[in-house]
């Protein structure tokens, strides 16, 4: 029994030492990494720009920060992150507001993000390295998994699956110049698009119970007197179900007087124009340029 006890002690001691050393090494390299996604996340949590754009991949690929900055004469950063849900945007804004108050916020919101059952659950994968940064992030991550707080005892776990990108050490100057915007370069092959759309949106969901974090986001902007524009950016093709959900979203956002809602899903400049799209939900670089210019025009009129 004594022998077993010693072996068990050695086992946990080796794990403890390994976890501390490797965890420290990962943390140091993560924080000094030049990998675009890591540097972007670090920037967005501390953003100091005047105009900030939030949302998922549709935000990330649709708003050309350079064109916006030039057209509006403001500093701009695109905080959009592919695959992330509304809660992520809310946490980003919350973290930013602890240090800085943007002059204007654009929030790209679409039905597909609201109805994605895994939308918010991807938070842990991206925000884990910032678990100890604030109580907001900690509570959000703990909310997804009751064991998360125990996993976070490990120094390695927050950097799980980041090793490859940490080791890449790739410096990409283009990323810094694009200010968070990530252009997509190919043109949409529309073969079978009707089936794709009908399979993707084959059931109408009620959005009423899916707006919790959207409401929190709106109220956070309101409490800080930040003008907010919620944009439903262009889609190549919609169907009746998607159109009805977009209409419902517009209706549900109407009571919030501190935000303006713009719906581009049926905009004829984009609808059924494959040359502006990478796929059904994402504009390519050419489409993003046209769309950004449209946004600038609306800003000018509003001003």
């Amino acid at each position, binding site marked *: 029994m004594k022998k077993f006890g010693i*072996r068990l002690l*050695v*086992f*946990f001691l*080796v*794990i403890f030492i*390994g*976890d501390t050393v*490797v965890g420290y090494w*990962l943390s140091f390299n993560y924080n000094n990494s030049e990998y675009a996604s890591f540097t972007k996340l670090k920037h967005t949590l501390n953003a100091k720009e005047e105009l900030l754009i939030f949302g998922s991949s549709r935000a990330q690929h649709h708003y050309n920060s350079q064109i916006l900055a030039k057209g509006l004469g403001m500093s701009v950063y695109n905080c959009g992150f592919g695959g992330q849900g509304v809660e992520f945007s809310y946490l980003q804004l919350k973290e930013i507001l602890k240090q800085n108050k943007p002059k204007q916020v654009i929030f790209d919101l679409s039905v597909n993000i609201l109805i994605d059952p895994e939308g918010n*659950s*991807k938070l*842990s*994968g991206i925000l884990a390295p910032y678990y100890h940064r604030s109580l907001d992030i900690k509570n959000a991550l703990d909310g997804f998994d009751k064991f998360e707080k125990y*996993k976070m005892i*490990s120094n*390695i*776990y927050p*950097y*799980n*699956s980041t*090793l*490859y*990108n940490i080791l890449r050490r790739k410096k990409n100057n283009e990323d810094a110049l694009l200010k968070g915007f990530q252009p997509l370069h190919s043109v949409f*092959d529309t*073969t*079978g698009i009707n089936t794709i759309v009908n399979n993707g949106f084959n059931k109408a969901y009620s959005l009423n119970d899916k707006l919790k974090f959207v409401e929190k986001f709106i109220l956070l902007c309101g409490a800080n007197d930040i003008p907010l524009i919620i944009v439903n950016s262009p889609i190549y093709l919609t169907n009746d179900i998607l159109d009805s959900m977009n209409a419902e979203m517009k209706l549900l956002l109407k009571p919030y007087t501190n935000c303006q809602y713009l719906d581009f899903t049926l905009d004829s400049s984009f609808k059924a124009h494959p040359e502006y799209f990478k796929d059904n939900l994402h504009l390519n670089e050419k489409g993003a340029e046209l769309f950004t210019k449209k946004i600038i025009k609306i800003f000018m009129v509003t001003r």
Partner: protein
Amino acid sequence: MAIGSAKIMGFKLMTNFNRPYFSRNIAEFWKRWHISLSTWFKDYLYISLGGNRVGIPRWYLNLFLVFTISGLWHGANWTYIIWGAINGFYLVFAIISQDWRKAFAKLIYLDRLPKLNNFVQIILTFILACFAWIFFRANNVQDAFLIVERMVSDKGTIYIGEMQQIILSLFAIAMLLFFEVLQEYKFKSQLPIRTNHWLKETVAYAGLVILILMLGVFDGGQFIYFQF
């Protein structure tokens, strides 16, 4: 994991999966895949139906029925039934075509290269098993047939995705395959890091825990066959 967890509590479980993808034919595959279930079906259904001590047509029917019913055991869905039936068909066809296949191997001189012959048989069995898995995995029969249809019709380019994912996947596959090959052909132990020195072994296991923390999947879905 199941064997290890049970052993901690003093239970000795049988080996349930014995590297099935190294099987050289479907009959061998079913001796290596979900062994406890296959054994149960053999003892309580196949033998009860008469096993192979009946006329040949009835023997084939017995095999086909046992596999179709084993498909149903996995769930009340046509996808599972079709999956079971496909495996039953594979098995019956393998028996019927045994002599033809041997003759064909002789014709192309494959019988003179036993290692290559084995390799070809492993690959073919793997492809057949994977084809049947389409029906097992698909959400419904329509989806399964759509997948099969798309496999043989020209529908765009192969999805490559991010290079990072490709490299990581290839690395993971190579690493797993390396250990599987070692275990199949070199060591027969289930624990490749087993040594006679307790300290080396302890450090190796602690190292594995650290590797899991670094590279393990904590937010992914469960292995599809876990529920069975």
